[in-house]
């Protein structure tokens, strides 16, 4: 398919959509889907058909709208109406209301801060297009960046745009993407690979899942642009097996793109070819680490290896390999289409653009949000998130998953970016953001994460394998009230050692939840140890210890 053909198809699809004046979009993200949104969609389709609205109303499936806790979410355009918690039994009433008075009973104000405060780039198509329709994606401007670039941009120009955009890796560490792409492009080697890391293993994170499910072509387009930029002919999308919907949507998207000549040989009539294969993870958090991920793609135990050499020099099968995560790739097409300068104008000086967060825990509106870098935690939690439910008091927000930390109230007004979070002992991570109130015990939270890291340690290096087990043991003792003062000193010593000597990022960051809770909530530790008491009333202090 050439650029002209692409534009013609986009026109045609848009024209067809315009005929149907009213579009009812039913969210089919995993959250809404589990709340029965597929039956809601069927019911709405049936109702509108029976009412003879067939031509004038289109009922369609869309990706995640973000407000997962209020699903199933249904939107109606052009009326700009949003409905929440829609059930199949609501379909007749809802269908009857189309074109007339909105159904107030289920209505969600679309100017609520949850939507108004967001800025969507990576998520711009989510909730708008049918994720299983490549035509929908094309009508929304999809693949224009790719075919335009293939026709008129040199690979170096794409890397230039990505560099100018200031985009940093959205997987966690925030390495400048342009720099990484440049290294792979410069690396010698006939064979190069592009890998998309969709192994979203952080508990409390579902950003990448929503993107893969809701806009799979966006990921593929980003990867293809990357492949063209760095000179790769093959790519892999590494997806968690726990995301069956993402897997099937990606599989379908790859097939569609191949049919349209947007993947495969001679893309867009150019000499450039790129093939993408799916690889399923099998439940190993460490595979989010890039060298472990590569081992897994090669069909081996997902154990990391020392870097250097970095994947950009020697990655898959020893070839230069570009690894970025899903959200990073989702930002590429807009950057190429609208220019790096446009993207760089959003965010903070050192962290440009937007970031997708999975907001959950003790917060009124849980769900998926995309906000400009530099926004404060207070704005996210109290404006977008609607604050803490049940009249409870905010205690901490956990960012960065098991590699991150617990951020206390005093930092709520700090502008959020990669560096500010690191400065207070946490990390941006992939974007999980879990809000905790006074009912959470911070020692118990630290113990929880250490339990996670102990179970997910690959076992290759000694500090992580045994150090996490020993740290977990101390934390377990503290939560049971059987620890002594000396244990706290030993815990801190272990944190320092595991952080500085572990082979990979998992071990190096495993102490973070402990270090931050010790720094900001030390009194809670001391209460468990000295007074044999859990201030949050969460831990089961052993009778013996209490006595």
């Amino acid at each position, binding site marked *: 398919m050439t650029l002209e053909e692409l534009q013609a198809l986009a026109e045609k699809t848009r024209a067809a959509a315009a005929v149907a004046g009213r579009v009812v979009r039913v969210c089919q993200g995993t959250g809404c889907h589990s709340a029965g949104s597929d039956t809601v969609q069927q019911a709405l389709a049936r109702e509108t058909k029976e009412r003879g609205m067939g031509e004038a109303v289109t009922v369609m499936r869309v990706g995640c709208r973000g407000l997962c806790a209020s699903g199933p979410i249904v939107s109606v355009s052009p009326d700009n109406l949003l409905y929440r918690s829609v059930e199949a039994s609501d379909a007749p009433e809802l269908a009857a209301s189309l074109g007339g008075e909105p159904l107030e009973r289920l209505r969600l104000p679309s100017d609520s801060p949850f939507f108004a405060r967001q800025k969507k780039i990576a998520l711009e198509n989510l909730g708008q297009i049918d994720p299983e329709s490549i035509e929908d994606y094309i009508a929304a401007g999809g693949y224009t960046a790719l075919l335009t670039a293939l026709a008129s941009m040199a690979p170096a120009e794409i890397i230039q745009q990505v560099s100018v955009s200031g985009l940093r890796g959205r997987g966690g560490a925030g390495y400048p993407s342009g720099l990484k792409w440049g290294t792979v492009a410069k690396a010698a080697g006939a064979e190069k690979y592009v890998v998309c890391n969709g192994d979203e293993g952080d508990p409390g994170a579902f950003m990448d899942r929503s993107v893969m499910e809701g806009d799979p072509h966006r990921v593929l387009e980003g990867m293809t642009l990357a492949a063209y930029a760095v000179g790769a002919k093959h790519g892999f999308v590494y997806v968690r097996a726990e*995301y069956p919907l993402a897997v099937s949507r990606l599989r379908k998207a790859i097939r569609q793109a191949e049919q349209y000549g947007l993947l495969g040989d001679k893309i867009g009539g150019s000499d450039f070819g790129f093939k993408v294969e799916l690889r399923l993870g099998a439940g190993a958090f460490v595979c989010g680490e890039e060298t472990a991920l590569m081992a897994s793609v090669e069909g081996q135990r997902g154990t990391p290896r020392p870097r250097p050499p970095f994947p950009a020099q020697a990655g898959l099968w020893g070839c230069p390999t570009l690894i970025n995560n899903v959200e990073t790739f989702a930002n590429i097409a807009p950057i190429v289409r609208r220019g790096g300068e446009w993207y760089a104008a959003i965010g903070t000086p050192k962290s440009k653009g937007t970031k997708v967060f999975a907001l959950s825990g003790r917060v009124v509106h849980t769900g998926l949000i995309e906000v400009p870098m530099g926004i404060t935690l207070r704005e996210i939690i109290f404006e977008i998130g609607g604050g803490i439910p049940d009249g409870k008091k905010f205690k901490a927000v956990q960012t960065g998953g098991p590699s991150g930390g617990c951020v206390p109230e005093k930092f709520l007004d700090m502008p959020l970016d990669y560096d500010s979070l690191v400065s207070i002992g946490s990390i941006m991570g992939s974007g999980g953001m879990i809000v905790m109130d006074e009912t959470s015990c911070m020692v118990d939270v630290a113990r929880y994460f250490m339990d996670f890291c102990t179970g997910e340690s690959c076992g290759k290096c000694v500090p992580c394998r045994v150090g996490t087990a020993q740290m977990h043991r101390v934390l377990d003792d503290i939560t049971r009230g059987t620890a002594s003062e000396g244990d706290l000193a030993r815990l801190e010593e272990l944190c320092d050692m595991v952080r500085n000597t572990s082979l990979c990022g998992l071990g190096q960051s495993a102490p973070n939840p402990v270090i931050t809770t010790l720094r900001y909530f030390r009194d809670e530790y001391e209460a468990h140890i000295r007074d044999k008491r859990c201030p949050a009333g969460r831990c089961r202090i052993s009778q013996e210890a209490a006595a």
Partner: protein
Amino acid sequence: MSVAQTHHGRFLGSRTPAPSGDARWKLVAATMRRHGYRADALIEVLHAVQGAFGFLDDDGLRFVAASLRVPYSRVYGVATFYQHFTLRPPGKHTCVVCMGTTCYIKGAQGLVEAVQDRLGVKPGQTTKDGRVSLLEARCIGSCGLAPAVVLDGAMHGKIKAEDLVGKVEEWMKHDS
């Protein structure tokens, strides 16, 4: 598929006989064929075996090892590295409790304990009659609906312990 041809000279195809006449082995063989019997497809093929049979047994591991020409110990090492793979047959019904952070702070531990008390099995175990397996998941990514469980493949969000136990009891009661 041609991706790794250049890196793996072995493009031999396989004549290893399937462990039995069970038609499901054909699905497994098809996956191996699609990947050109490449050793790097090991995890994909193990997914196919588990997808077809529900777990990985020694016969299956030997078949995969021989077909892909991967040493037994490596196949076993890979199969036991990843949490998704299981070497034991699962129960007729499965109850997966998400232990992601959000579910945890919203009481997932209580869900596990409630089911554990009712069934008398620990996470990762199956009841003696083979009826129900209790499992924990790291995070199923449905944090908006925490605490969440997956019962026989279907997600249930914001679930209470007594409701969960009720559902599990139905499995124990009926011969379904």
